[in-house]
């Protein structure tokens, strides 16, 4: 009993300390936002919400730049002060709002005196979030059974390559299926290495990344460069969902996409259902938390890990295929550009929950599309720095300023079955 009270007290102290750090961080952010964007801004920022051709057109959103930036930075500072004083539970919400405000301020600053298509950007956000969300789902499938999968980046790259190569030969549908299978094969390889041969999970993942990078680059220079027709696949066309696609803002955001976006959303919800509503999901989570207890209850730890890691690999392969079959239709070396790792950060941000990870992926997708769309606005910021945005956000997220999240208990440990 006393032990319990003590631990609760230490927890409180830890929480006060971390809330002090995160509170100060927010106040710093507010000052930074104000210093960077608050000076010398004039005029109004015009955000276009619809195209004139849309059936239900919305009027433009016009914000006075100067006062918006002032109010936003004050609000962030207020949140920071509140965190320091009271240490409330809803860290993530406060942080999400603060970051949202900081980014909104940035957008208003960049758009001041010009006009910018907000809907176009939101649409790009959803598209860009797809590979990140899928990487996060792959990560969740593996980490819920206590297997760290750093190799997602490589699995996605393999999926991207397979999609382009086999899509060029057999057509995009079969190409997609093969990409998923290839992802699954690398999932099997990871499972073999870490479950059967008990290789350090991070080393195995890194090795898979290097292996796939080498393999895809090798095949690119030995096969694709000599035969360009093998690297020219049809991409999946976007499917407009009747009626819903005509809705303002939401229509272009969610219902005018290709099959990848719809399937990704389906995967997120089926992963949630699988993990939290089915017996198999419960077993998987038990294996991740306490493999020995799970084994005692008659669950095969090894089998469960194999199945989940292979499914994770398949999801990663599907996410990789997005880069080629769902986007540009051709493979380039290293084209996944760290999305697999960003997906892992999204998983942590989303606290190992599929829906949370999806929301986090949207944040990253936003940062990703930001750099793409801001080029149009001709901001004085060099494009290289805009390209860093998703990576910097990732570091901030995993730095746990958003509050510490708990990974599955047995994470990273090999399981040795006792006889």
């Amino acid at each position, binding site marked *: 009993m006393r032990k319990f009270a003590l631990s609760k007290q230490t927890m409180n102290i830890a929480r006060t300390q971390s809330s002090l750090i995160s509170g100060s961080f927010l106040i710093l952010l507010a000052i930074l936002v104000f210093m960077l964007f608050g000076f010398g801004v004039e005029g109004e920022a015009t955000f276009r919400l619809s195209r004139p051709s849309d059936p239900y057109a919305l009027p433009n959103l016009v914000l006075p730049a100067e006062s918006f930036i002032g109010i936003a930075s004050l609000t962030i500072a207020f949140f920071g002060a509140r965190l320091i004083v009271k240490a409330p539970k809803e860290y993530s919400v406060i942080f999400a709002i603060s970051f949202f405000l900081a980014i909104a301020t940035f957008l208003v600053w960049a758009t001041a005196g010009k006009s910018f298509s907000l809907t176009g950007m939101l649409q790009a956000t959803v598209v860009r979030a797809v590979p990140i969300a899928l990487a996060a789902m792959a990560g969740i499938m593996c980490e819920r059974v206590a297997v760290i999968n*750093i190799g997602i980046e490589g699995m996605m790259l393999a999926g991207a390559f397979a999609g382009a190569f086999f899509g060029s030969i057999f057509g995009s549908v079969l190409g997609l299926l093969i990409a998923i299978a290839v992802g699954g094969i690398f999932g099997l390889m990871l499972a073999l*290495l870490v479950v059967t*041969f*008990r*290789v*350090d999970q*991070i*080393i*195995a993942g*890194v*090795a*898979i990344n*290097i*292996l796939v*990078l*080498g*393999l895809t*680059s*090798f*095949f*690119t*220079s*030995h*096969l694709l460069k000599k035969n360009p027709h093998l690297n020219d696949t049809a991409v999946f066309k976007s499917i407009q969902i009747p009626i819903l696609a005509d809705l303002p803002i939401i229509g272009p955001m969610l219902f005018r996409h290709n099959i990848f976006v719809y399937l990704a959303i389906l995967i997120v919800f089926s992963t949630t259902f699988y993990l939290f509503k089915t017996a198999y999901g419960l077993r998987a989570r038990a294996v991740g938390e306490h493999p020995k207890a799970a084994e005692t209850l008659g669950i095969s730890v090894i089998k469960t890990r194999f199945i989940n890691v292979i499914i994770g690999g398949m999801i990663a392969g599907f996410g990789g295929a997005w880069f080629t079959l769902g986007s540009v239709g051709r493979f380039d070396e290293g084209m996944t*550009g*760290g999305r697999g*790792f960003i997906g*892992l*950060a999204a998983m942590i941000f989303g606290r190992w929950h599929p829906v949370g990870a999806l929301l986090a992926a949207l944040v990253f997708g936003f940062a990703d599309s930001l750099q793409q769309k801001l080029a149009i606005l001709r901001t004085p910021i*060099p494009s*290289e*720095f805009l*390209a*860093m945005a998703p*990576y*910097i956000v*990732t*570091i901030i997220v*995993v*730095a*746990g*300023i958003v509050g*510490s999240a708990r990974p599955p208990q047995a994470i990273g440990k090999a399981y040795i079955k006792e006889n």
Partner: protein
Amino acid sequence: MKNSIKIKQAFSVDRTTFQDIFFIPILAISLAISLGLLLLLLTGESYQTALTALIALFVGSFGSVSALSETLTAATPLIFAALGIAIGFRAGLFNIGAEGQIIVGGLAAVIIGFSVELPLMLHLTLMLSVGAAFGAGYAFISGWLKAFTGAHEVITTIMLNLIAFRLLDFFLRLPFIQKEGRNDPISKSVLDTAELPRLLVLIDPNLRIHAGFLLAILAVILVYWIIFHTTIGFEFRMVGTNLNAAKYAGVNSSLTIVLAMSAAGLCAGLAGASQISGVLGRATSGFSAGIGFDAIAVALLGRAHPIGVLFSGILFGALVAGGREMQVSAGVSLDLITVIQALIIIFVAAPILVKSIFPWFFGKK
């Protein structure tokens, strides 16, 4: 009777460690090279090409004085960076950020190299130490984040790599750094006083092996001494073996983590600086050339031991030099070497796998 069992046990332990240290790497390398050649055949190349590639791999790495010089030149930055990664491993840290640290260190070094005018030794020393310091500073970020926020160093170092690539592109286009009259990202050349002297100019001025290799050997000795004969090295190993035990023993684990990570970055920064100073003479967009990633394999193969790193660094240097020869004489892309390296990592990290493939090399349990 009892004694003989004891001796037998001691002997068998020695025998297995001997097998682990020598057989597994050798088998892993042969297995990896064989699979690489198999891959070559799979893409429709002839047996002739595969054979030429295999021969080129050996001739280009150890076949002549110039081949040997190329091997050691390629090994130099690998040894530096892998020493850093080995220090990280000892402290339980997995530093994937060597690539970014090489870039930042090399970039800082190149700026000192062309902008400062100093006498020979001073200029060289300044350039190398600034490169090392910037590499250390860049790694410090990950170390600090790990120690004080718990952010996993694998993810932060990877992100810092990606950021470093963008930073490099940005800096190489600044008018202060970019070579006059060029539009592509390329820096000015370093002054003669900042170049590491070549070692074998007496035999042939074209032999590229430079004094950096001697520095790398010095670094091996120094790191060996630090890891195994100093308090801080002991603390690195304690934190790496059992973090909680180290904390109870009074080790300041946060400080140790930050120090280990910074030391790792220092080595990687030196790798970048020596590469700029001894081989390239200037920085270009891809000057790091994956050295930081290859170094991970080098550190793993060398079992995070400085002496092991020295030998595995030379071996990987040989793979790079031989790979270039392979590219020239057999038309095989250098990416095959990346595949072989990844396979080596997998086989070295999975001794059980190697033992089950070649059971007859290992005594029964």
